[in-house]
């Protein structure tokens, strides 16, 4: 008994002393240097060298290793990678991942209830609120003030956006320094290369032009590999209904994506599926249907990408993430001509494209919060601060010089071997350490693809050059016909918006009305698209409109208009405009 007690005391004393040493060194390095110089006396040259060293590398003090636990759902994440090894060298910090294999929020709730949560949690805003209310989080304001100069510098004028309504910072995420379309961005209307080729690569800007080339192609090729050619497809059952029957209307109007709503210049919010533009889009689909170009199975399928994978869908509305895997398969199968061009299409030639928008921060489903379990939370903030520094940015996004990238003509460039590995090994990022729990855009507090660091070079490798290196020959050829290099070149420059309507928690008092309106939409959609003639279409349209109006369309629009005004006012107040 007494022996263990003694041992414990010694250990404690040792650790207190050690902490003292580390704190002394790291918090006031210059002073340390000075003390050394006075004690060293005569040897001026040596002193100078030490001093210089200290001022160059304020982190030089031997860092006591410290390990933080953190939740993840990515079973492949590990700290045993070349890049993470350097993180630890520079900051002393290691992460140990606590894997959640089942339902994430359920486990997070249980952790909160029982108090055995990890030191750091990556979670969405709702969970952050829960943890905050449960007293499980540490407010980060003071820690960032003291230990986070790089965090403050990178956030700049948007720093206050990190703060909750109570003025405290409960979680941290990336900030978007980029104001250009990401090199891998693309419009969402897709058209098969072969269709464009047969039509002689025409400039198409409107849905009517799309109709003409689809019709021409299908008349010439009624079948593709023994199966009926499908002009245009969609997916009406399941959650993709919003992507297929709401989003294209927004895109074709050239508006930013606010979910199922559109916002006019005066801040008036309108339910999009019953807008005048919606009528135009549904009559376009109706025209496709009447002429046998619309997929008859669209009404009963829930996953469009499965249909696209068959290679016989000529065009559709499909975001890149729905098509990526499918196109890989086409290439592997030796059918590059079945890949898709991503073109912005509009209702008319003079539609102004304002669809490309960016938000200033990457608040989202994986915000990092420090819990009360964490010992020495300042060490973790120092770690995050390192990641926000230019050195940390380069290391976490570009990797190690000589291993992953080189500086060629003053520009960081990924090495050929690295490019090859990225192309062929889906786990490459995890193995090398590029992957982390997300922080909004990519990993490790990425400041936005297309953003530049203080050295004037790109912050992440996702640049135009990189994107170009990944295209296959046919893609390059098609792009060249249009005088472009990437699909992103079809997009206008990005505008900063405070946020999107779908990110704001919806108003609660109109739940029932909103539900009835959505039901009416889903009920009338097939009727509109399958209408036999113009009168039939008009009567369905009027039916849908009056059902929605009866269900409380005005109230819903009004509630969202207020919500949006309120959100914008808060945003302006926060950044101090």
């Amino acid at each position: 008994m007494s022996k263990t007690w003694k041992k414990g005391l010694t250990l404690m004393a040792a650790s207190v002393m050690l902490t003292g040493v580390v704190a002394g060194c790291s918090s006031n390095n210059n002073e340390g240097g000075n003390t050394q110089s006075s004690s060293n006396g005569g040897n001026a040259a040596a002193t100078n060298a030490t001093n210089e060293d200290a001022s160059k590398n304020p982190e030089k003090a031997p860092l006591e290793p410290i390990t933080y636990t953190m939740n993840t759902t990515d079973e492949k994440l590990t700290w045993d990678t070349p890049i993470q090894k350097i993180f630890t060298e520079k900051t002393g910090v290691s992460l140990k991942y606590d894997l959640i294999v089942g339902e994430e929020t359920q486990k997070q709730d249980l952790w909160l209830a029982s108090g055995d949560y990890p030191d750091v949690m990556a979670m969405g805003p709702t969970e952050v609120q829960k943890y905050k209310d449960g007293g499980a989080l540490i407010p980060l304001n003071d820690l960032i003030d003291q230990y986070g100069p790089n965090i403050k510098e990178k956030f700049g004028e948007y720093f206050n956006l990190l703060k909750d309504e109570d003025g405290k910072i409960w979680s941290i995420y990336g900030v978007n320094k980029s104001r250009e379309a990401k090199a891998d961005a693309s419009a969402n209307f897709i058209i098969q290369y072969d269709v464009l080729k047969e039509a002689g690569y025409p400039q198409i800007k409107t849905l009517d032009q799309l109709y003409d080339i689809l019709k021409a192609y299908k008349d010439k090729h009624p079948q593709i590999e023994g199966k009926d050619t499908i002009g245009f497809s969609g997916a009406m059952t399941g959650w993709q209904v919003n992507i297929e029957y709401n989003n294209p209307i927004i895109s074709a109007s050239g508006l930013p994506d606010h979910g199922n709503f559109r916002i006019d210049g005066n801040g008036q919010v309108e339910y999009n599926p019953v807008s005048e533009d919606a009528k135009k889009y549904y009559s376009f689909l109706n025209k496709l249907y009447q002429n046998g170009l619309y997929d008859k199975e669209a009404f009963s399928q829930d996953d469009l990408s499965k249909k696209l994978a068959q290679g016989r869908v000529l065009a559709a509305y499909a975001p890149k993430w729905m098509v990526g895997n499918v196109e890989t398969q086409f290439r592997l199968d030796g059918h590059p001509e079945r890949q898709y061009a991503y073109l912005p299409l509009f209702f008319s030639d003079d539609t102004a494209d304002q669809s490309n928008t960016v938000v200033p921060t990457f608040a989202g489903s994986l915000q990092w919060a420090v819990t009360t379990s964490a010992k020495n939370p300042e060490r973790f903030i120092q770690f995050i601060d390192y990641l926000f520094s230019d050195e940390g940015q380069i290391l976490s996004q570009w990797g190690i010089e000589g291993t992953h990238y080189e500086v060629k003509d003053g520009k960081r460039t990924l090495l050929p071997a690295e490019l090859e590995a990225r192309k062929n090994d889906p786990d490459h990022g995890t193995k090398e350490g590029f992957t982390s729990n997300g922080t909004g855009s990519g990993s490790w507090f990425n400041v936005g693809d297309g953003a530049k660091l203080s050295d004037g070079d790109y912050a992440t490798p996702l640049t135009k050059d990189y994107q170009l290196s990944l295209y296959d020959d046919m893609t390059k050829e098609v792009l060249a016909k249009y005088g472009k290099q990437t699909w992103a070149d079809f997009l206008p420059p990005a505008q900063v918006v405070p946020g999107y309507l779908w990110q704001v928690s919806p108003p609660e008092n109109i739940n029932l009305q909103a539900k009835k309106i959505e039901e009416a939409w889903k009920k009338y959609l097939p009727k509109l698209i399958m209408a036999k003639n113009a009168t039939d279409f008009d009567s369905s349209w009027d039916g849908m409109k009056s059902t929605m109006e009866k269900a409380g369309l005005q109230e819903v629009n009004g509630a969202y208009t207020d919500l949006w005004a309120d959100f914008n006012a808060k945003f302006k107040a926060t950044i101090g405009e």
Partner: protein
Amino acid sequence: MFVRRSIGDVAFSIMNYTVLLVLGIATLFPFLNLAAISLNDAGDTLKGTIYVWPRVFTLENYSTIFANEGLAAAAVRSVIRTVVGTVLGVLCTAMLAYALSRREFFLRKPFNIILIITMYVNGGLIPFYLLVKNIGLMNHAAVYILPMLIGVFNVIIMRSYFEQLPEGIVESARIDGASDFQILFRIVLQISLPVLSTITLYIAVMHWNSWFDNYLYASRNENLNLLQYELQKILISSVNQVMSANTHIDATDARRTNPETIRAAMTIIVTLPILLVYPFLQKYFVKGMTFAAMKE
């Protein structure tokens, strides 16, 4: 008359066979479909429309799964858990059921009521989690066995079966000087094979399939990972891969796994052992269930 009746008979037989055949196919189809998908190329499966025969045959889905380190160890753990859990579970269920089946047991009524209450009312997930934590079962192998030791439904089935055994058997054994344990193990259980095998199968399948307690209570101890949990990990990493492949531009040329084929192959892998055992227990299984049902 005769002719007519036989026409009716024939019609009935035809109807009978058709209905049964349709029913049989309807039950078999999902399984065959999974088997076909699990043997079909991952990329090709993206195109859908695989029914009962693979279009591009491959064993790659299985090799993807079996390539995972830790899978074999997890499978061994799962087998151990199933064996230990089943033996202990059946033993405890039988002892409790026997006690509750004896009319002379004076706490029989209150015990029955208490047990049945637990079938309808429970503390919920969070209290249960806290209980497991506070009695020190967190990340401990016992968490797989202890909380699942008694299933009330199983106890009721077994009790009902015991109750319909002729009372004289137990009485005569008692007159011959047998203790309660001797009566249970030497006599009652010997003549209760149908219900024993039914309960054994129930408990064994429950243990074999369970992964929830692994995820909830034992996820921080890698030495306790079970087969189902490891398979779930493989599935999730396949889903993650597709998601990140679709959102990032990396790995444009890599042949990827497809969660759909992985899931199918997983299902086949975990169902096979049960399929192999089931036929041997089946004849008792039906008997055990019907006996118990009759009595109640």
